[in-house]
């Protein structure tokens, strides 16, 4: 975010990018001192683990077919699915990062909250129902409906694995740092615990376990945040105006926290970020997979509606929590590292950095046991999100690459599912290794990159194949790769990598968010290449559009809730 002029915001803004990446961003946390072992938090987290392992055991008993493994047998209800979708989205960074951003700069935190939410209506209006009507287990099923299986699955699986890889690295590093801070456990232990648990959830329990872990975490997180925001409002007689006045009176920036600050000074950067957030949401493989776990298009539609409400509610809570942090923590030296003569900077000296606002506030309003609860929920949050990512990655390997590209359909369900489980184990081990390797690297840009790739590769390939008759295999394949390379290339040439990581003096690509350029480029390439494609296959694919169109619009002939 080269145009964001406040170095503190730089880290927090990245934090707001969906996951706990910010915990890895140097400027935010500063050097991490391992804290004293936090036994109440570890105890509550241990309880969560035992409970979810019980669910995994039960899910494993009921997971027999490929449909059970990838899509929970299509038996998830709209209400449950909406909690799982919301859970995938309410990551540790949305919670800790955005409340921290509100704490440091007030209003600007709201810019990210809105950006994260507005992708959901687009998902609902344009793709959710069609996705459910056309698909089976992965979004590649949909994109390759009338196009060449091998080519389209290669691009879809590549897009999926790239998104999953960057997202996972950021999560693993964030998890290690966060747990070091919250639980007082060594970094490597934390990374191994996360890696091993996610392997167990995914390899044994498949989508059923992954969904229920996510649902339980979503309920705990929503409950904890509701309690915290309620406690804050209670102190101000449930009058937000009183809370805002108290915050303005305490914050060093005073009344400026109620107005836009320096976060969005460059409109192009802002629009590019907004596009990445909005359309990236519609291309995240672990979220798209959730649409295949419900019985039909109606349930898919309802899940998005409820999920939008839950996520919006959650973001309003984080906003109140951030303001509560300002009003209740800022004048209390207990929450700050004190300099000589007891002086402290109300923003820079917060214990654990500004990402710990919500955690410190938990202590202020609920005491050490509530602090332990919130810490355990933060850990559970990371765990649930990485499990979803691992499942999406494993499905891309087994269902898309192995079954359709390598074995070319000459395989059976049992061996496909077995391969998926092996993939989950491999992905887990690789994730632990990468988490270890990247411990001291700045990985904050990786989440932004994951969103950009999702918006520039997965989303264009998916929407063009569903909505435009003219799309051909060549168009989807070349356009998808162009979007992928453009997004990755522009990020590599941007300040976050070119200057910060490689140490070059000046960034070649002037913006931090490539989506404004890479996404239209992908759409344009798909369009142009498809137009130029006059092969016999292209003609056949255009002719097959009617059958796909009828099914996507009506669900007639859609794959049902069960294996077929």
């Amino acid at each position: 975010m080269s145009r964001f002029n406040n170095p503190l915001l730089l880290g927090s803004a990245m934090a707001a990018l969906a996951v706990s990446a910010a915990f890895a961003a140097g400027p935010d946390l500063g050097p991490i001192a391992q804290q004293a072992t936090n036994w109440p938090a570890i105890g509550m987290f241990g309880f969560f683990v035992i409970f979810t392992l019980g669910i995994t055991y039960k899910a494993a008993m009921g997971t027999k077919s490929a449909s059970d493994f990838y899509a929970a047998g299509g038996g998830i209800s709209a209400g449950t699915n909406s909690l799982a979708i919301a859970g995938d989205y309410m990551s540790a960074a949305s919670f800790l990062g955005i409340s921290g951003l509100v704490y440091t700069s007030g209003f600007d935190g709201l810019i990210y909250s809105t950006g994260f939410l507005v992708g959901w209506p687009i998902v609902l209006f344009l793709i959710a129902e069609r996705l459910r009507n056309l698909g089976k287990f992965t979004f590649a099923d949909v994109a390759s409906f009338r196009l060449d299986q091998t080519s389209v699955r290669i691009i879809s699986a590549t897009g999926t694995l790239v998104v999953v890889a960057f997202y996972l690295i950021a999560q693993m590093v964030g998890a290690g740092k966060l747990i070091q801070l919250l639980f007082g456990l060594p970094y490597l232990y934390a990374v191994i615990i996360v890696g091993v648990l996610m392997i167990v959830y995914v390899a044994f329990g498949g989508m059923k376990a992954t969904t229920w872990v996510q649902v339980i975490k979503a309920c705990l997180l929503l409950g904890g945040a509701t309690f915290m925001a309620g406690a804050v409002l209670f102190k101000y007689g449930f009058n937000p105006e009183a809370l805002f006045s108290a915050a303005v009176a305490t914050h060093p920036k005073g009344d400026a926290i109620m107005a836009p600050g320096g976060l969005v000074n460059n409109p192009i950067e802002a629009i590019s970020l907004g596009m990445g957030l909005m359309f990236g949401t519609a291309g995240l493989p672990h979220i798209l997979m959730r649409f295949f776990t419900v019985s039909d298009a109606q349930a898919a539609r309802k899940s998005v509606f409820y999920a939008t409400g839950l996520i919006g509610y959650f973001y309003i809570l984080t906003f109140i929590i951030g303001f509560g942090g300002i009003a209740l923590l800022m004048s209390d030296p207990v929450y700050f590292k004190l300099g000589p003569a007891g002086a402290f900077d109300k923003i820079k000296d917060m214990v654990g950095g500004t990402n710990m606002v919500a955690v410190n506030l938990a202590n202020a309003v609920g005491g050490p046991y509530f602090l332990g609860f919130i810490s355990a929920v933060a850990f559970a949050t990371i765990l649930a999100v990485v499990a979803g990512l691992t499942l999406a990655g494993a499905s891309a390997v087994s269902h898309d690459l192995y079954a359709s590209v390598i074995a070319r359909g000459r395989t059976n369900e049992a061996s496909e599912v077995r391969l998926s489980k092996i993939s989950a184990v491999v992905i887990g081990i690789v994730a632990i290794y990468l988490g270890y390797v990247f411990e001291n690297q700045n990985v904050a840009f990786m989440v932004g990159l994951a969103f950009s790739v999702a918006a520039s590769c997965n989303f264009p390939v998916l929407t063009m194949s569903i909505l435009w008759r003219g799309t051909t295999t060549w168009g989807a394949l070349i356009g998808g790769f162009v979007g992928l390379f453009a997004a990755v290339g522009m990020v590599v040439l941007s300040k976050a990598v070119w200057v910060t990581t490689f140490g070059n003096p000046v960034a070649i690509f002037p913006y931090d968010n490539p989506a404004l350029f890479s996404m239209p480029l992908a759409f344009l390439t798909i369009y142009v290449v498809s137009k130029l494609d006059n092969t016999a296959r292209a003609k056949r694919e255009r002719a097959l559009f009617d059958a796909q169109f009828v099914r996507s619009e009506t669900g007639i002939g859609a794959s049902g809730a069960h294996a077929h």
Partner: protein
Amino acid sequence: MSDPVTARIAQNPRFKELVHERTRFGWILTGAMLVVYFGFIGLIAFDKALLATKVGSATTSLGLILGVAVIVFAFILTGIYVQRANGRFDALTAELNRDLAR
């Protein structure tokens, strides 16, 4: 799905009506969301002073109310879509299915 069946559905007036209405409706709502969101971002980029305006004599600023309004608007928009899809579009789909069964 064999071709004659596809062709029969694709030619069905109810199918055409359903697709036309839903596609139009989906794009209108998408447009509304894009205008509201990028309008909000545009105000932040170009007219910070307006967003800093106080509502009445209170501390609460216009920007804060608009920000929360964007969130609520997104939710209401999805509600409007689901309402119409559950009523109108599902009814059309059911009629289409009855037509096809005949």
